[in-house]
């Protein structure tokens, strides 16, 4: 089992790069309406950053900041956000996932659908991010941990 990649260059490089990878993931998420990107891609990039830290700084340090259980809980929250957006539309008197029915009367209809897509993408983002980190933690942990 990989404990930690002991190398000061890899450690420093990843520490410097990870904030920018986080920012890029958020950019891909929120700019997915206008350019290639979206929830799936942004979640994969964000998870790659966390996994990079797990490999260079070691699990003991990074698991305190971001425990494996929190990753799966984040994934569940993502699915709940997605389903919740659909249910809000359902209770507002329209079809499931028909974002034009979102209860935001001051936004025009096209804007409501824009926001609906954004909420759903955030749900997908959290789901993919949490699940990828959780799978990495599952396959890289100690047998008797």
């Amino acid at each position, binding site marked *: 089992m990989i404990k930690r990649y002991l190398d000061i260059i890899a450690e420093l490089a990843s520490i410097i790069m990870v904030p920018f990878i986080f920012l890029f993931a958020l950019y891909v998420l929120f700019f997915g309406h206008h350019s290639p990107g979206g929830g799936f891609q942004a979640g994969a990039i964000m998870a790659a950053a966390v996994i990079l830290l797990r490999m260079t700084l070691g699990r003991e340090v990074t698991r305190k900041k971001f425990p494996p259980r929190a990753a799966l809980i984040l994934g569940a929250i993502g699915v709940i956000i997605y389903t919740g957006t659909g249910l809000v539309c359902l209770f507002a008197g329209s079809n499931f996932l028909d974002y034009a029915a979102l209860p935001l009367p001051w936004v025009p209809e096209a804007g409501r*659908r824009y926001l609906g897509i954004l909420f759903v993408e955030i749900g997908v983002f959290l789901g993919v991010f949490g699940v990828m980190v959780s799978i990495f933690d599952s396959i890289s942990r100690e047998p008797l941990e």
Partner: protein
Amino acid sequence: MKWVALAIVGLFTLFMIYIEFGMPPYGEIDSPASTHVSPYYIENAEGETDTPNIVTAVLADYRGYDTLGETTVIFTAGVVCMILLSKTIKDD
């Protein structure tokens, strides 16, 4: 038993290859894919959803059910990985 499975898989492969010849040519204008919904998406997606990226509009709005299913599948895969791999092995 192994040969029966192999024969079934082989027959199915031949069947799929045979079906492949019935598909419309790639990029044909008269094929069902380019006459049914694609023109609607290209003409109306930006006006209806305020989203210039048609792929995102189709993925999350017009085909929202699909994406919900995909997210659920990914989440289920994560849960199953955790359940299968977090089983502690005890020394006998």
